[in-house]
C-alpha cells in the first residue's frame, strides 16, 4: 500500500472549488489587455480589466486540460511523468544568492555556481529534473533568464523546470529549447522543459503572466502555474481561504491557457506560504506552508490535473538543524501527498539563498521520502514464518538467503552525507557540512559532460553568442571557450 497524506475531505474540497468558481465570476480576475479579446470571444465579460468567468465555461475548459504529460530528456526519452501520484523533485529556482562553498556566507551567485549546481544535480538520481536554479550575477540582468537555461542545456540531459522573466524573453528561451530539440515541432512533440508562470496574488494575471500562458499554450510547451497566496497578507488568513484563492488563480489561468490552445499541457502548481505576522516574512519551512502546499495539490488532484509545489526548503540562514528539520519535514509531506513536481531543494533563508551543500543533504531527505512512499510490501509468501522455520529461535537472520536477496529492496542506503557510523572511520568525525562539501566535490569530479550533436551545439552557441553580444556580453561565462570555439561562429 502506498502511504498517502490527505488533509481535505471531499466535502471540503467541493466547498473550496465552489467558492473558487464563485470568485472567478465575482469579483472576477484581473487580466491583461493581451488576453481580453481571447476571453471575450469565448463569451467572458471583461470590464475595466477584470474578467468575470462563468463556472460552466471554466469547468468545460478544465476538462480540456490534459490529465498528464511527459517531459523528455535530451535523448527524447520520457523522464518526468506529470499526472497521477508520480512524485519528482527538482532544485529550487531563480535564486540570486548562494552560500559560498568555502565561507558558507551568502554572496551573489555567478555562472560558475550555476554550472556546479547543474553538474551535481545531473549526478543525483533523486532529481528527475533540473531547474534554472540561479540568476547569474556576472551576466547582464536583461539576459539573466535565458542565460540560466543555456547553461542548463549545455551541462545537462535531464528535463528542466524553468521560466521567463518577461513576455518577450520567453521567445528567446523557447528558441534555445527548439535549437536543442531540433526544431519547434520536435520541441512540441517532446518538450524538455516546463515553464513556471506566476499570477500575482490576489487574482491577477499580469501582462507578462497572461502573455506567457498564451504563448506557451500555442508553442505546445508545458506551463506550470505557480500561484502564491500569502495567507493573511495577499490572501485570506485561513489556510482553507488561501486554498480557495489558489484554486481560483489556477482555474482562471487554465481558462486563459486552454482558450489559447485547447489540450495544451498545464500544471496546477504553486508556492503558497503563510505570512509571518511578526516579521512580514514568508516562512517556506513553516508547517502551515507545507499544509497549504499539500491541500492546494489535493484540490488539483481532485480535478485530475498534474500538480506542483514548492517544498524541501528551510528558512535559516545557514545549514543548521532548523534548516534540516524544516526541509526534511516538508520533503516527506510533499512526497506523501503525491505531488508530481516538488521544487525547492537546495534553498534556504526564505528562498533568498541557494546552497549546493544543502542540495546534496536534501537529496538524502528526498531518497528517504522516496523510500517511504514505496511503502511496506509483502515481498515473501510467508511474511516471517518461513524464515523462522529456518532459524528457529537462534536469531540468526543474517545468514538467510532471503536476507541477502531482499535487504537492498527493503533498506535504502544513504550516501556518506548521512552519518551512519562510517564517517568516523578515519579517527575524525566530519560534521554534516564537511560531509556535504566532500560529497559535492566527489560528484563534481565524477561528472562528465555529454555534448549535443555537433550541428545543434554549433547552432546553440552561435545563437547564444549573438544574443549575448547584443547585450554587450563578450564570451559566455560558465562555458569554456575551448568547449565550443572549434565550431563557433566568430
Amino acid at each position: 500500500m502506498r502511504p498517502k497524506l490527505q488533509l481535505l475531505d471531499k466535502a471540503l474540497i467541493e466547498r473550496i472549488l465552489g467558492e473558487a468558481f464563485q470568485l472567478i465570476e465575482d469579483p472576477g480576475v484581473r487580466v491583461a489587455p493581451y488576453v481580453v479579446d481571447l476571453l471575450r470571444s469565448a463569451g467572458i465579460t471583461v470590464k475595466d480589466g477584470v474578467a468575470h468567468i462563468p463556472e460552466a465555461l471554466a469547468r468545460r475548459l478544465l476538462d480540456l486540460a490534459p490529465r498528464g504529460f511527459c517531459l523528455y530528456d535530451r535523448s527524447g526519452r520520457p523522464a518526468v511523468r506529470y499526472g497521477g501520484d508520480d512524485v519528482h523533485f527538482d532544485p529550487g529556482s531563480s535564486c540570486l544568492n548562494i552560500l559560498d562553498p568555502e565561507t558558507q556566507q551568502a554572496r551573489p551567485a555567478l555562472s560558475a555556481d550555476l554550472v556546479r549546481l547543474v553538474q551535481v544535480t545531473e549526478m543525483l538520481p533523486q532529481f528527475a529534473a533540473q531547474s534554472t536554479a540561479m540568476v547569474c550575477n556576472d551576466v547582464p540582468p536583461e539576459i539573466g533568464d535565458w542565460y540560466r537555461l543555456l547553461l542548463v542545456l549545455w551541462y545537462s540531459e535531464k528535463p528542466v523546470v524553468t521560466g521567463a522573466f518577461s513576455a518577450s524573453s520567453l521567445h528567446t528561451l523557447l528558441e534555445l529549447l527548439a535549437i536543442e530539440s531540433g526544431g519547434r515541432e520536435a520541441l512540441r512533440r517532446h518538450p524538455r522543459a516546463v515553464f513556471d508562470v506566476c499570477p500575482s496574488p490576489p487574482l491577477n494575471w499580469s501582462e507578462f503572466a497572461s502573455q506567457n500562458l498564451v504563448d506557451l499554450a500555442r508553442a505546445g510547451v508545458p506551463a506550470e502555474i505557480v500561484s502564491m497566496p500569502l495567507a493573511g497578507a495577499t490572501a485570506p488568513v485561513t489556510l482553507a481561504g488561501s486554498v480557495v484563492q489558489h484554486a481560483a488563480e489556477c482555474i482562471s489561468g487554465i481558462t486563459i491557457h486552454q482558450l489559447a490552445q485547447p489540450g495544451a499541457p498545464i500544471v496546477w502548481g504553486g508556492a503558497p506560504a503563510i505570512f509571518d505576522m511578526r516579521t512580514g516574512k514568508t516562512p517556506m519551512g513553516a508547517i502551515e506552508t507545507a499544509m497549504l502546499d499539500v491541500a492546494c495539490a489535493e484540490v488539483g488532484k481532485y480535478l485530475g490535473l498534474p500538480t506542483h509545489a514548492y517544498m524541501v526548503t528551510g528558512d535559516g540562514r545557514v545549514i543548521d538543524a532548523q534548516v534540516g528539520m524544516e526541509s526534511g519535514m516538508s520533503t516527506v509531506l510533499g512526497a506523501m501527498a503525491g505531488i508530481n513536481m516538488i521544487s525547492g531543494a537546495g534553498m534556504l533563508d526564505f528562498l533568498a539563498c541557494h546552497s549546493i551543500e544543502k542540495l546534496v543533504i536534501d537529496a538524502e531527505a528526498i531518497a528517504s521520502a522516496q523510500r517511504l512512499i514505496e511503502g511496506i510490501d509483502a515481498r515473501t509468501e510467508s511474511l516471517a514464518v518461513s524464515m523462522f522455520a529456518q532459524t528457529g529461535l537462534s536469531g540468526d537472520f543474517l545468514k538467510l538467503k532471503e536476507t541477502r536477496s531482499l535487504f537492498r529492496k527493503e533498506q535504502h542506503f544513504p550516501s556518506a552525507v548521512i552519518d551512519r557510523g562510517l564517517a568516523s572511520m578515519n579517527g575524525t568525525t566530519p560534521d554534516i557540512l564537511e560531509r556535504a562539501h566532500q560529497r559535492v566535490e566527489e560528484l563534481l569530479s565524477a561528472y562528465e559532460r555529454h555534448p549535443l550533436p555537433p550541428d545543434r551545439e554549433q547552432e546553440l552557441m552561435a545563437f547564444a553568442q549573438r544574443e549575448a553580444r547584443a547585450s554587450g556580453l563578450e564570451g559566455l561565462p560558465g562555458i569554456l571557450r575551448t568547449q565550443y570555439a572549434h565550431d563557433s561562429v566568430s
Partner: protein
Amino acid sequence: MPDDNFSAMRQSIIDGAPDTAAGLAQQAMSSGIAPIDAINLGYVPGMQAVGEQFARGQMYLPDMMASSEAMRAAMAVLDPELKKLGAERSMAGVVVLGTTKGDIHEIGKILVGTLLTAHGFRVHDLGVDVSGEKFAAQARELHADIVGVSALLTTTMRNQKSVVEALEKAGLRSQVKIMVGGAPVTRRWAEEIGADGYAKDAMSAVALARQLMAEKTQSVVAEPA
C-alpha cells in the same frame, strides 16, 4: 484631567481603536487641549509604544495595522485644528515611498511607512508600480528628504536603479537620500546602484532614515549655500 486623556489617547493607539482615537481627539478639542499636545503627549507616544512592542516581537502586524488606522483617525481630527492655529507638527523628515515599476507588492512598504510615521516622519506613499520619473517628480514637489524604494521580485529589483538615475537626471540627487529594501535586496546591491542605504526590515528602515537625516543635516552644515 489632561494626563488621563493623554493616557487614553495613547491606549487607543495601542489598542488599534480608530473610533476611540477619533472620539478622544474630538473631546480634547472641545475641552480646549492644544492639538499639538494631544499629538505629542497622547498619540505619538502610543505609536512609539507600538513600534517598540513590534520590534520586541510582542505585537503582530495586524495589530500594528490597526494602530496605524487609529493614528490616521486621530490625525484626521487634529490636522485641520493644527492648520487653523497655523501650527505645524515638528517632524523628523519628509519621505517619499513607493514600490518600483513593474512591482505591485506593497506590504513591506506599508510597514516601513507605518513605522516611519510612528517615529515622526511625514510619509507620502506613492503606491505600487511607480516609475523613476514619478519618484523624481514627487520628490521635487514634496521637498522630500528621503526617497524609499521597495521591490519584492528579483525581476523588478533592477528598477530601483532607474529611480536613482531619475533623481540624478532631475538634478535632485544631492538633496535627496535614497534608501532601498525588499526581499531580494542586499546591502551590496544598494551600493552597486548608488543608493545611500539599505534596510533589512521595517524597524531597521527607521534607524536608517534617522541616520540618513543626520548625514543630510551634517552635509547641509558643511556646505552652506
